[in-house]
């Protein structure tokens, strides 16, 4: 897919959001409240080693935590009619979890505000890797992720930015002298939940399109739980002592994409057309991407 996150895209997404949120929220609330069960779920597909089979094509679902839908984690929500922090910011599904808010250190908050006024700085607008958890926290219903899994790894192939994470499940430690956009992911199974520890970030990635950010001290703990054969509950806890005064919690679901659909190619850098849309309206200098 070509990357064209234009204002038109927001409008479409907003409509989709409004249409879906009413219906989807109740189902999701029920799922989330139940949470992952401790007793082995016999209805789940499993690999020969007994681990839940996360494989398939998955799409972040609408519904639930609307604060994440379009815009930013801290409640800015284009879909809810808000922008630049002017949204209602409630976001959460009725009865669902309250949306998380970032609690920045004063210095980091000033930086966030600066970036918010200069959105053309968003590295994803330049087709850079989105980082974690932004790779999964793409606008709902837009870019799927293909999961391939064996006894040694769980691989996430993201359509967006053709981002790839091949996560080893051998309890190996993070490397030294390695700093990456997506950090370094090491996975392990806690019962039926796939837990990923992500560290070694290079500090360049943003968390959303609204200037929320992390630096190289970011640390993410992700939890992937197959709560039924067609639903993965995704939870992430982001800590970054030099940016946040308390951890940021994130939670949404991935829904299985019907088997007759496939992942497409996302060539962004190789045909980027959206950066101008960021730069002009945000008063930034116009940057040409060749």
């Amino acid at each position, binding site marked *: 897919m070509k990357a064209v996150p234009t204002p038109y895209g927001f409008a479409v997404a907003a409509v989709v959001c409004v249409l879906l949120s009413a219906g989807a929220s109740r189902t999701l609330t029920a799922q989330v409240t139940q949470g992952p069960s401790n007793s082995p779920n016999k209805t789940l597909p499993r690999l020969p080693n007994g681990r839940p089979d996360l494989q398939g094509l998955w799409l972040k679902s609408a519904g639930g935590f609307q604060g994440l839908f379009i815009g930013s984690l801290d409640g800015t929500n284009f879909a809810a009619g808000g922008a630049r922090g002017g949204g209602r910011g409630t976001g959460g599904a009725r009865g669902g979890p309250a949306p998380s808010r970032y609690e920045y250190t004063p210095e980091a908050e000033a930086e966030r505000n600066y970036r918010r006024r200069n959105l053309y700085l968003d590295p994803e607008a330049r087709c850079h890797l989105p980082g974690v958890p932004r790779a999964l926290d793409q606008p709902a219903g837009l870019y799927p992720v293909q999961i391939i899994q064996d006894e040694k790894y769980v691989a996430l192939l993201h359509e967006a930015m053709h981002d790839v994470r091949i996560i080893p499940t051998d309890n190996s430690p993070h490397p030294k002298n390695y*700093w990456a956009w*997506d950090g370094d992911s090491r996975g392990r199974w806690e019962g039926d939940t796939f837990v990923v520890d992500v560290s070694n970030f290079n500090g360049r990635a943003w968390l959303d399109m609204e200037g929320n950010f992390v*630096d190289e001290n970011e640390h993410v703990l992700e939890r992937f739980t197959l709560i039924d054969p067609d639903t993965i509950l995704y939870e992430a806890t982001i800590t970054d002592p030099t940016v946040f005064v308390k951890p940021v919690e994130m939670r949404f679901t991935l829904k299985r994409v019907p088997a007759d659909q*496939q992942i497409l190619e996302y*060539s962004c850098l190789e045909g980027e057309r959206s950066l101008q849309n960021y730069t002009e309206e945000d008063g930034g200098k116009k940057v040409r991407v060749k």
Partner: protein
Amino acid sequence: MKNRFLMAAPYRACTRSARVLRQAFCSIVAAGIVAAFVLTGGAQTQKPFTPARLWDGKTPDFRGIWQVRDTAYVNIEGHPGERGIAAARSIIVDPADGKIPYKPQALAQRQENYRNRATADPSSKCYQAGVPRATYVPTPLQILQSPGNFAIVYQDNHAFRVFHPDTRPHFDATDWWMGDTRYRWQGDTLVADVVALTDQLWLDQAGNFHSTEFHVVERYRMTGVDTIEYEARTEDPVVYTKPWTLRTILYRVTQPGARIIEDECLEDANGVRHHISPSDPKNLLKSDYSRWKKPAQK
């Protein structure tokens, strides 16, 4: 007693004799036995290698990290030694002269590309390498597999290809950088049909190219525990006079702990993108981003 003697007789005949001629005879016999063994062994390696299976007991197991050892990425038609890279022969096996059978106008375009290769090569802009080029770039790839799934992740510009079974037709509605791949197993050989490749791609650093009519049939065949023979038969009626085929070997990367690392290019002050290793401190934002951690501007 008699039997024991019979079995021991050749041994005794060869070792206990003091006569030179007889020793020579024994040596010839021994050499013959060795030669026969070697020939038999040689015949066995001619037989197709049988790869291990995935846990379904059926699918050949191609999983692993693989990398070519040749320098075809410089020029698949072969190249002289330069810049510390040894000279290399063409990896094109058909036609026999190792040259791409360009149409005259296309050949002129290739020469033009060659002259401008330092700046015009799409890979120098950190674009995805396309097919088959991604296979023989000088960085590894990883084959991800499970029953019913086959994908290749290329370290180069974090490109990946999800191979779809050929039971459904190509998605050929647009031109992509990594194309649309449909595959099937022919015995233990994976045969992949690739279309929908953009004409912005090059095949190497020397400006060899194709049009959007480019069609590739890839064959992946394990020839040993640690080798995959890779073959790509290509055709393009716009640019070439006839189909041609290249062949190379992918070697398993066997170092313990080896893995695909992140390859994301960074822009320098002039807006030119460069590959930066994740182990290079320049990759850290705090290394080159002066404003953050200082009082915010504006």
